[in-house]
């Protein structure tokens, strides 16, 4: 089994969606999460505040306001799943992308086996 991060990319410069749309979207993503749980593929899911709430801490202890990179595309939330291979991860990513209407980056976890 391999673990994958399914990261939701959002455009923070886009106008906010209506409350109704947000609710409908959460219902859709909730359903995908339930499917993942039923399939034994689910590890974690979470949505994030926008990057205005972000703070970066340097090894020196210095702090800066904001995310790593100041771009309009930011991480909006993510799933962590556990599946056999990339094909299975991509199949979940397709469902997630349809549910949130946003692109999903699929990134394998480094399980340390290749060192």
């Amino acid at each position, binding site marked *: 089994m391999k673990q994958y991060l399914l990261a939701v990319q959002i455009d923070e410069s886009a106008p906010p969606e209506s409350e109704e749309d947000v609710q409908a979207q959460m219902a859709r993503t909730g359903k995908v999460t339930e499917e993942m749980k039923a399939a034994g593929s689910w590890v974690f899911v979470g949505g994030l505040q926008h990057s205005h709430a972000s703070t970066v801490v340097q090894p020196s202890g210095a702090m800066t306001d904001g995310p790593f990179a100041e771009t309009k595309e930011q991480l909006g939330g993510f799933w962590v799943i556990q599946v056999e*291979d*990339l*094909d299975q*991860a991509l*199949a979940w990513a397709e469902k997630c992308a349809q549910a949130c209407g946003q692109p999903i980056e699929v990134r*394998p976890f480094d399980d340390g*086996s290749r*060192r």
Partner: protein
Amino acid sequence: MDIDDVYRAEYGRCVATLTRLLGDIGLAEEAVQDAFAVAVQNWDELPPNPGAWIVTTARNRAIDRLRRESTREARHAEALLLHQSDEPEEEVGPVRDDQLRMMFTCCHPALSPLAQTALTLRLLGGLEVGEIARAYLVPEATIAQRIVRAKKKIRDAGIPYKVPDDADLPDRLASVLTVLYLVFNEGYTSTSGELVRTGLCLEAVRLARELASLMPDEPEAIGLLALLLLTEARRPARVGPSGELVLLPDQDRSRWNQDLIAEGHELVRRCLRRNQPGPYQLQAAINAVHTDGPATDWSQVLALYDQLMQFTPTPIVALNRAVAVAEVHGPLLALATIEDLELPGYHLLPATRADLLTRLGRTDEAVAAYDEAISLATNDTEREFLQNRRARLAAP
């Protein structure tokens, strides 16, 4: 047949089988290269089954090598290998399904298009990195880097080594067919320099043949093979005595390869009987019409293009269709069908327009269109062809 022929024929098959046995492409390539090095030193004459000899030797060398190494990766590969070979002394040969798995892995859509092509030629075709680089006219380091990166991604991202599930198969097969088609096309009309790179054409045909025999129930795989055979068959007549481009109507049909044409026609008939048309089968059928009898039946070609437009309504198909429209309904109607096409940077759009305008006697417009086509052409032979056409027009 010497060891070079064995290498060309068996390298891809052996790497594919070793990849399954070892669970890693890099280890598989090393093992197969080791085995060929042993073969060079030990073969006075070819063994009865060179492929099986290479796979067995590669497997045994891999076991030795893995036992000497103590990384987790090596232990994993060793465990996989021992688990799979219950009788390690028995000779094992390349398994044909492994090649199919390898095709789907190399052409996985999670890899960039250039990486898909380079991997396919390297791992399945056994072409050296330098050969691939020369074929695509890019620096060797670029291809080497793409291949290394792609193999790393296959390993680290967990791209599976298997034939896709039924649900994914149509899309994934399309991706394999595209790569083989592009390899052939790059060989047939190279984007720069000389017109034909024979090696790429032959490799694409060989792999398409493998694919069609591995997936005999996929009509589009048969269609692609037929298309490549019928196009390849005309290659000898496509270049004239001084290296100039010769278009279909002017080709010396006696120089066409009749064996390939017969094989292609038989495959097209098989597709027709199956009656599950698709883009490659239709293109094959068009080429079957071109190679049937002393001259092309253009109304049949046009009907096939109409059908193809329903599958793939792309500007390129529309442009090719216009050539058939001109033959059946005249150049004026053909010109109307391509007026609104948008194919930025593609020299064959203005070249086709130039030809139609010439036939309509609209010389000034034709000259301007040829100029545009000449400025866009990247291939020396095609550029010369267009320059000749233009020169003939401009002559008083």
